[in-house]
């Protein structure tokens, strides 16, 4: 029974949703199920928040390794939760947006989260430069092709590309670096991306069929697989 019920739910929901695409009167079912999904997803927020509290409170209580960071995590979570729920510092009444200008929620977002995330992402420039220096070596034919393509794209994304090759006559304009960069994006890149998308699509269809027909059962957990 423990195995049959989830398998039956998966089969019925999967089959109905596939049929709803092909049978116009059943199309509303698709939207109804999506709404159900959204309602269920709301509870995931509670579960996620509860789980975060449980894990970090346990870590603090047991004084596990790096427990000090849990204080930061819990403080951040609780402060933002309170700021959002009680709309602390909001200029209007309770009906105004949680992130209205001047609210505590928006202030913390602007002055803490925003610079932190931007800083983390900007570090990428340094690692990309270091990795490019070490990885882009013309070791063999394939690596050389990759190197040339990377060079053209890098140059094509700057005004220098046009400055260096702008003198090439219009009849050979494909050889201008920005046009070459566009060609790489529009031809080899496009072909590769399409192949990947089609491959992923076929994989999704095959996996979905396995799930709907009950062949794939790993989502039920180890005991039921």
């Amino acid at each position, binding site marked *: 029974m423990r195995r049959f019920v989830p398998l039956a739910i998966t089969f019925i929901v999967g089959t109905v949703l596939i049929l709803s695409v092909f049978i116009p009167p059943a199309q509303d079912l698709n*939207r109804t199920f999506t709404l159900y999904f959204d309602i269920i997803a709301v509870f995931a927020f509670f579960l996620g928040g509860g789980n975060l509290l449980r894990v970090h409170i346990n870590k603090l209580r047991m004084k596990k390794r790096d427990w000090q960071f849990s204080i930061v995590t819990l403080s951040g979570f609780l402060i933002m939760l309170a700021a959002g729920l009680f709309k602390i510092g909001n200029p209007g009444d309770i009906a105004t947006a949680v992130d209205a200008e001047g609210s505590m929620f928006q202030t913390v977002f602007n002055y803490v989260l*925003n610079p932190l995330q*931007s800083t983390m992402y900007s570090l990428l420039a*340094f690692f990309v430069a270091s990795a490019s*220096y070490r990885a882009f070596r013309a070791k063999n034919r394939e690596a050389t092709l990759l*190197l040339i393509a990377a060079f053209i794209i890098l140059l094509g994304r700057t005004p220098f590309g046009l400055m260096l090759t702008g003198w090439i006559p219009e009849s050979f304009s494909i050889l201008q670096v920005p046009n070459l960069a566009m060609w790489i994006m529009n031809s080899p890149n496009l072909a590769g991306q399409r192949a990947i*998308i089609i491959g992923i699509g076929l994989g999704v269809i095959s996996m979905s069929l396995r799930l709907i027909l009950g062949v794939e059962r790993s989502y039920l957990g180890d005991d039921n697989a």
Partner: protein
Amino acid sequence: MPNLGVIISLSVIFGGLAWLAYRSIKGYEIDRRVIFVFIGIAVSAPLLFPITFEEKATPIVERLFNRIDELPAGSRVLISFDFDPAMAPEVQPMANAISRHCLHKGHKVIFMSLWGTGQSLMTAALANDILPGFPEKKDGRDFVNIGYKAGNEGVLNIIVSDFRKMFPTDVNGVPLDSTEVFDGIESCKDLDLIVALGGGRPGPKEWVLFVGDPGNVPIGVGVAAVVAPQLYPYYPQQIIGILGGIKGAAEYESELIKRHERFADMPTPGLRMMGPQTLAHMVIMFFIIIGNVVFFMTGRKKVI
């Protein structure tokens, strides 16, 4: 004419790189901290002493620009801010430029987000960057901010047939039915254009799959540079134009300035950031060349 700061910065960067090239030919490897220092200088020097370049819109950017430009005043355009602060330096300039363009052309604009962080960025951008330039525009009549809704693709799957099921009110709790912008709009199918800005998931790709294709709504996108190659398969049939990274934003801004006098003095973060990006690219290319020089030299591996 470049100022003294620019000349000194370029001399330091390219002089230093020439010295590194010489050392590499002598057979020395370059420590990664040296690379970090050069990238740091290449990115920060053009911010302190701005270097600006002239940009020309590529066809893929121009197509989206033209679509917004040619839509009749009063057209309904939805702009979705599906990004976080990490992506904002690349995507925010294009979000601001497109929003300004739409408001200037008299389109009715709906602002929304599928990312929790997107709503806060959108609120800040509207209050500080976009709306101060349009004091004549009224909330509810010319634009509406409907904010963030959790549910990712699920939200799109619903609003493609019914907006109010997911967004009964705007971000301030005002019912959508009482706003002029939503007059005659039942679903995304009633929109004239959707501009999806982002790069993660849910993002532009989900807008194409769940709204653009099933609803037959034209979609333009603005994304971080690393994501742009993944969207080329959808161009030009399913996506009418792609703005990729800072370069895409700079091209859009330059087109906006060229074609509309009103924006002659507008802030142009995209064009301004092309300086750091250009120099960083040049430095990276230089290091790739040095790396290959070292690779082809005989195996002396000293570190400087």
